[in-house]
């Protein structure tokens, strides 16, 4: 897909997700107003007050859930804005854990992000890096045992920024693992890896082949 096409797709998704958020905001305030009005009166004056308050509360909770989803979609859309941009790997890995949550859930595997102790900024192609991280997570989800927990975590290895995906309670390696180049099923885009200026390492541990993506 050309950068022009990616940017177009991102623009449309960002615009629509913004509109959905406006709809959710109005539903949320309407449910909140219902709760406010019901709570203005003593219990005895309003029939079914408790049930109505509960129903309005459920609407609010589901709206909050919807807002989280739309925010994720909106952030994803904005990753398509520019072919090169500065990103914080802490933010990006948290976003990836959120975007891939449903896939992890389907595989009965837990997935969470763990931030690095400080902001870890790199300049890269945000959309293609997200594709790479999603592909790496897919591989790990396929290979991990059901019931296990995957962690996606930014780190520094030998001074260079990296993203590690592995199984808790393992931690990112301090030195580069000996195995270079993760199998090709990870990311069928050799040019993509060159474009992103990354090397991929297989840091296997018991029951799982972890992945280390190192930024050159």
């Amino acid at each position, binding site marked *: 897909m050309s950068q022009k096409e990616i940017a177009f797709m991102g623009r449309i998704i960002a615009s629509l997700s913004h509109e959905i*958020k406006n709809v*959710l*905001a*109005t539903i949320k305030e309407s449910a909140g*107003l219902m709760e406010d009005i019901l709570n203005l009166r003593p219990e005895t004056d309003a029939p079914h007050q408790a049930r109505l308050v509960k129903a309005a509360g459920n609407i609010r909770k589901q*709206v909050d859930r919807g807002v989280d989803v739309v925010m994720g979609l909106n*952030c994803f859309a*904005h990753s398509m804005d520019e072919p090169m941009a500065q990103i914080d790997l802490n933010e990006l890995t948290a976003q990836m854990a959120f975007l891939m949550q449903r896939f992890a859930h389907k595989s009965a595997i837990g997935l969470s992000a763990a931030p690095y102790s400080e902001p870890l900024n790199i300049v890269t192609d945000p959309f293609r890096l997200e594709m790479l991280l999603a592909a790496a997570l897919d591989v790990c989800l396929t290979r991990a045992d059901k019931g296990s927990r995957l962690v996606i975590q930014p780190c520094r290895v030998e001074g260079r920024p990296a993203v590690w995906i592995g199984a808790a309670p393992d931690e990112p390696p301090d030195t580069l693992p000996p195995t270079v180049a993760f199998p090709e099923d990870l990311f069928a885009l050799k040019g993509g890896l060159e474009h992103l200026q990354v090397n991929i390492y297989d840091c296997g541990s018991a029951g799982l082949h972890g992945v280390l993506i190192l930024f050159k």
Partner: protein
Amino acid sequence: MEKKMKVLLVDDEAEFVQTLAERLQIRGIETLVAIDGIEALRLIDEEEPPIVVLDVMMPGLGGLEVLQRLKLGHPNIQVILLTGHGSTKDGIEGMRLGGFDYLMKPVRIEDLMKKMEEAYEAFSTSSITEGGSE
């Protein structure tokens, strides 16, 4: 008797802003509503509310432009921006232009109330300081 806090709510989503106004009224706050930037500036000149809650993303005159214009004539008015995007970029730009703070939309009413109280305190302090220096 303590005077009611007055706030102008500005958002092009009419149903959203009307409902929010009703919820604030229940909490004892006097509200004014505008659904575009031009109407907002007119109400600011006429009513001089101490606080404005302003949506950043509006068609026509956008929130940041409204903020810039209102600050020229009414520097003490405190503006809370509502940003709709996943990014905080607009909110930060709004604060650079003199906004009091920003909140992500949709906002929890408790968070908005708290922010409005802080903004009202900032308005009162800046008004006293200005009055004292004259």
